[in-house]
């Protein structure tokens, strides 16, 4: 397990210099957590495909690379490109992170309703310790996942959102993580903590993007606590550069009668792994996990989801869809746990994959672990090509083959896209998808 690799050695070296940095010393109270996480990483090492959880996702390219912690070296000339990944200020409040480090200058965090906070985690670690300390790293465990362990060891910045009970937000909060490499292989470990009080209603978008190509690693962890009766629409839009690696864990804890909706859209990166874990920890909770992944070239995207029906009377709905072209590949692993006393649980899981080429590969696996008897659980996975009859019908009306393929491929994703309540995000995805579909057809 503890084989040495270039990546492992580099991370250990980087940790030694991190320990000596101001950032490390500023939050000295985190030292025990960071050290515990580092020893978890040492113990776990990078996962291999012998590990069941990583069977179809080979992270050797990360283990064999030397990713260094980045310096803040944002080139102001890139600001126009940043606009491809942000929303207009009238549509949302925005926190912008360059290479994992908060940029006050580029952000536009307007005032939240009374008592609400939206700021960098680095700042919150100093000024909001009473809210941060009880939750930080209490949801996402570093003991079983090497990437979460690394993220926790290097924990220093990210987004912090806190909404006191009863807050209803009219604007969406946008957390933007962009990487700009200047030719350096960098690793960023954004860490987000989102604490949503009882009866709040909010929408939060996390965007991850590469500004200028290049090889880099984004290793993000987001922890979300949802108070009773709270409603959160969470969006994650992954548009990393083509050569980038993206590893991310989303860990959610839901209280009574809360509603959590997640939209996870993965379009970029050469190798992506998303772990989305939701624990419905009190009666009446409901979660909807929607996902869309579109791959081409030799991209690989792995979505592992886990929905834990820990208490009775909780509902979960999950719909993940994939569009795969060229020699790309994807994994969907949907785990649903229904605990012993979680009677009247209702879970529905669907995974559908559309293959646009003969070489694309999908591994889809439902994983149901049901320990209660009075439950309703359904699941289904499909892998298929564009329907010949639909293509013919479309062409018979005068629509050319390429346009017909684009139309039907886009239609395949339409239920996910239409479920995005925050429309600016749909516009961004439309642009990427449609330009990609028409380009891959014409090449």
């Amino acid at each position, binding site marked *: 397990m503890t084989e040495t690799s270039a990546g492992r050695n580099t991370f250990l070296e980087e940790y030694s210099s991190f320990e000596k940095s101001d950032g490390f010393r500023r939050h000295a109270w985190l030292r025990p957590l960071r050290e515990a996480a580092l020893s978890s990483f040492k113990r776990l090492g990078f996962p291999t495909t012998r590990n069941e959880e990583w069977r179809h996702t080979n992270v050797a390219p990360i283990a064999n690379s030397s990713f260094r912690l980045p310096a803040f070296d944002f080139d102001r000339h890139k600001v126009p490109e940043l606009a491809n990944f942000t929303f207009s200020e009238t549509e949302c409040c925005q926190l912008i992170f360059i290479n994992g480090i908060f940029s006050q200058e580029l952000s536009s965090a307007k005032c939240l309703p009374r008592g609400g906070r939206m700021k960098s985690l680095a700042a919150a670690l100093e000024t909001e310790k009473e809210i941060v300390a009880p939750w930080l790293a209490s949801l996402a465990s570093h003991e079983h996942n090497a990437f979460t362990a690394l993220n926790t060891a290097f924990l220093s910045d990210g987004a912090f959102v806190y909404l006191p009970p009863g807050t209803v937000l009219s604007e969406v909060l946008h957390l933007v993580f962009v990487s700009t490499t200047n030719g350096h292989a960098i690793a960023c470990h954004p860490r987000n903590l989102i604490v949503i009080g009882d009866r709040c209603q909010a929408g939060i978008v996390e965007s991850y993007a590469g500004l200028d190509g290049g090889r880099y690693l984004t290793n993000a962890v987001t922890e979300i606590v949802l108070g009773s009766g709270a409603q959160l629409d969470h969006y994650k839009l992954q548009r990393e550069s083509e050569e980038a690696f993206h590893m991310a864990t989303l860990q959610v804890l839901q209280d009574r009668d809360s509603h959590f909706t997640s939209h996870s859209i993965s379009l970029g990166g050469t190798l992506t792994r998303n772990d989305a874990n939701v624990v419905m920890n009190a009666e009446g909770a409901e979660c909807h996990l929607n996902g869309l992944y579109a791959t081409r070239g030799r991209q690989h995207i792995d979505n592992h989801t886990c929905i834990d029906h820990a208490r009775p009377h909780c509902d979960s709905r999950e719909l993940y869809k994939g569009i795969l072209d060229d020699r790309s590949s994807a994994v969907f692993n949907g785990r649903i746990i229904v605990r012993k006393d979680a009677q009247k649980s209702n879970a529905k899981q669907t995974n559908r994959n559309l293959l646009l080429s003969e070489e694309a590969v999908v591994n889809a696996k439902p994983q149901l672990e049901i320990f209660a008897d009075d439950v309703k659980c359904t699941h289904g996975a499909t892998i298929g090509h564009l*329907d*010949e*009859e*639909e293509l*013919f*019908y*479309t*062409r*018979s*009306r*005068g*629509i*050319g*083959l390429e*346009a*017909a393929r684009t*139309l*039907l491929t*886009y*239609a*395949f*994703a*339409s*239920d996910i896209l239409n479920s995005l309540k925050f429309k600016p995000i749909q516009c961004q995805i439309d642009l990427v998808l449609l330009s990609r579909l028409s380009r891959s057809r014409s090449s």
Partner: protein
Amino acid sequence: MLEIENLHAKVEGSEILHGIDLRINAGEVHAIMGPNGSGKSTLAKILAGREGYDVTAGKVLFEGQDLLAMTPEDRARAGVFLGFQYPVEIPGVSNMYFLKTALNEIRKYRGLPELDAMDFLVLAREKMKLVDMDEDLMNRAVNEGFSGGEIKRNEVFQMAVLEPRLAVLDETDSGLDIDALKTVARGINAMRRDDRAMLLITHYQRLLNHVVPDKVHVMIDGQVVRSGGKEFALELEEKGYGWLEETEKARA
């Protein structure tokens, strides 16, 4: 306008069409009748360009062009329309968007300016009236959850919007109650023009009470065994196809 000569076609190795000859002039409406499984839909789909059929002999000319050499989309752009016997559902694509895209592709091909959403809507509303179609259906996904009658109306509506030179309507009457049949027939009649030809494929004679054809052909086992004028349809209604099938066998 359409000349079919000695058309032979195979599906998955077995021959379905055994030499079809048919000639339709501009302005004419022809009907092809015949028992189930005789190859009517096969002929229709070959005309529209469905892949998977192997034309082993014969040729098809549409306004002098080799139709079989054209892609399905180019046939549609040149003016061939197939009203499907079993149109597919296309989830996720609105009927409105679908038809607007189709019309604009055809207009582009013909060197006409594209219609914007407003102009298209005006046109669509006018054509919807032809078949009493509910505007609601325009905003639904193509054919998704449509009733049998709605599906057939939608086919005729599409024809009315796309204004083809040759319309092949495959069992557009099947599954319709008498009122819906009359509505659909009215839509078809409104489309009759001197420079347009129509080929109605039907199993029953009843559509032909409302859309009176110039010629009626009977197809049995992949061949046109007999042709006649509009009275022929009535004779068939009376006698059924049995006697023709018998004479066919006797001849073979």
